[in-house]
């Protein structure tokens, strides 16, 4: 059904990207690559992963198939292999996957896909603000906020000039990360108004651990609207959508 080999470290970072949102997911194996879309139990965060066949050293699918994976179990097992090793996968039927990393051989049972929460449809959205920044900067903004409060505002100020901000206000303290044009790969806003939305740090924390490895992270920001976070690791592309917190009394 499916055979593929890929660097263990590349597979690990893809699984880590999914784990930021869900513990189990459906993997669609198609002739052109692997795609995963999943939304968390609270319907607050969504992740989509595209792993094209070019990300693999060898890849073949003779018949499209969807498999279910327990991601926590899978990552534990991938950690057993040398990150620089090549992970060879072989799927003969949709209930069992064979994995070989160096001299380690696993045969793991898969989840019945129908027992996993349904895949979301990826919505088409256009957002007024867009920023491209270093993954490590995004991570820093979130790390700095963690001890201060539970919620983080992400936005772009427009006056007097365009500045990207990440800000957390706790009961008593406040922290702000500001990056202007010179600190960013790019920044743009449609219209003259500032854009800002507030998010739960609990979610952003998990997501930023994954994006910290990326050179560039693209954020699309609206006013009190879900944030769209996308980045590439090697040939894989990952995208998150995270619903905001709205404090309207």
């Amino acid at each position: 059904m499916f055979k593929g080999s890929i660097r263990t470290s590349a597979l690990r970072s893809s699984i880590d990207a999914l784990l930021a949102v869900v513990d189990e997911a459906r993997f669609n194996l198609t002739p052109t690559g692997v795609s995963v879309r999943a939304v968390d139990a609270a319907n607050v965060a969504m992740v989509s992963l595209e792993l094209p066949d070019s990300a693999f050293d060898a890849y073949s699918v003779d018949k499209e198939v969807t498999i279910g994976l327990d991601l926590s179990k899978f990552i534990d097992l991938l950690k057993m292999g040398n990150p620089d090793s090549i992970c060879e996968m072989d799927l003969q039927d949709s209930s069992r996957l064979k994995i070989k990393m160096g001299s380690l051989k696993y045969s793991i049972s898969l989840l019945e896909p129908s027992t996993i929460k349904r895949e979301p449809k990826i919505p088409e959205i256009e957002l007024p603000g867009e920023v491209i920044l270093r993954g490590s900067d995004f991570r820093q903004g979130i790390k700095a906020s963690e001890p201060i409060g539970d919620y983080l505002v992400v936005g772009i100020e427009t006056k007097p000039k365009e500045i990207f901000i990440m800000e957390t206000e706790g009961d008593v303290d406040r922290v702000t990360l500001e990056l202007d044009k010179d600190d960013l790969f790019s920044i743009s806003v449609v219209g003259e108004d500032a854009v800002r939305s507030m998010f739960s740090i609990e979610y952003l924390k998990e997501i930023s651990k994954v994006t910290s490895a990326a050179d560039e992270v693209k954020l699309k920001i609206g006013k009190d609207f879900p944030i769209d976070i996308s980045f590439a690791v090697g040939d894989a592309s990952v995208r998150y959508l995270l619903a905001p917190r709205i404090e309207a009394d």
Partner: protein
Amino acid sequence: MRCTVCKGKGLCGRPNCPILERLRAFETMPSIKDSIFGNSPPSVFVGRMGYPKVGIGPLVPAITDAEISRFDNPASWGELKIEDVIGMRSSLVRSSKSLNVKAPQFIGNSRILSMTQELALADKPVETEVWFLKPPKMDLKFDGILTPMGPSGTIDKLAITENPSVERKVEYITSDTDINAKLAVDELYRGGISVYQIMRLLSVGLLGERRKLVPTRWSITATDDIIGKRLIDLIKDYPLINDIELYSFTHFENHFEIILFPAIFSFELLEIWRPLSLWAEKGSIEADREGYKGRSRYSKLGGGYYAARLGVLEHLDARRRQATAIILREIHPSYWAPLGVWVVREAVREALRGKPEIFTDPLDALGAASSRIKTPRVLWRNELKIFDGVRHQRTLSSFFFLLLSSPTL
């Protein structure tokens, strides 16, 4: 105000003087010679002082009571007053023998241990006779987690004068040494054995593979937590409740407001100790919580957190529904003696047996709840983080049509 100056006139502002109440409880205690004979409810106690060498033994009443079995069954104390509970419990004499916690692993080593275990297995009162090294001293032990206990003495000799009746399920699980303690607790609970008996079995080292004595106070929270974790796993697969529900109940001067929201499981407990209540001269407000992914650290609220959570989980499991639960607990100064965490467990269970008020707006539910809380809302409102999450966190499906089947708030 110093107690030495006041001498029970009530100058501190408490409705009852804890010192005088304690003396009053002493008066009702029967005097004890160097042996007693009575029906143990059944009840056992494992201390924690000196761990890993701990005191273990049965609790035997110094009085005869036709309904002695309820002396160790807090689920049946709904109608009692604080004084009644203390009166009842103070008549239970704690006998103990110091043993290493690993003693259950060495069979045939201690007759006192095996008899205490036999007693813990029983589902009906057991005729027990204890001879003490010296007559037990008058005493009354209180503790935040434990149920109060009366005088205590060191065991010289112990005898059980009848064959205790043991439920089949209990006999079966306790004789299985290949099942780990968590699974054993789980099996017993599913078999309809009360949490109080499971706690007893766990504490005397009758569950699990490598068996150990577990101090009673630890076995209480361990049992609440083990059962709770399993119920959470089940509840995560249930559909959400439909409305916001508010339950309210006062038990032993502890007032509870419980709000259930139609959202995936999470739990928050707010404890408000009013000024002059136990432990808190100036009052104290603390909250703790867990999200959908659960918690790994022991709660700063202690055993009460797990007891309260269990009450909610049992309710949701019985309805086969999922919800986020917020509990407000206000402890009044009239709660003058700590009775143990069973107060919390039973209060939450009882509250949820009532008929809820129904709301559509979380703020209205909180408003109704706080109208029955004496402490001003401004003092505790900021502690409610899960509540804020429920109110303010939007879902992706409120912006997009995701084609998902699960309902959302």
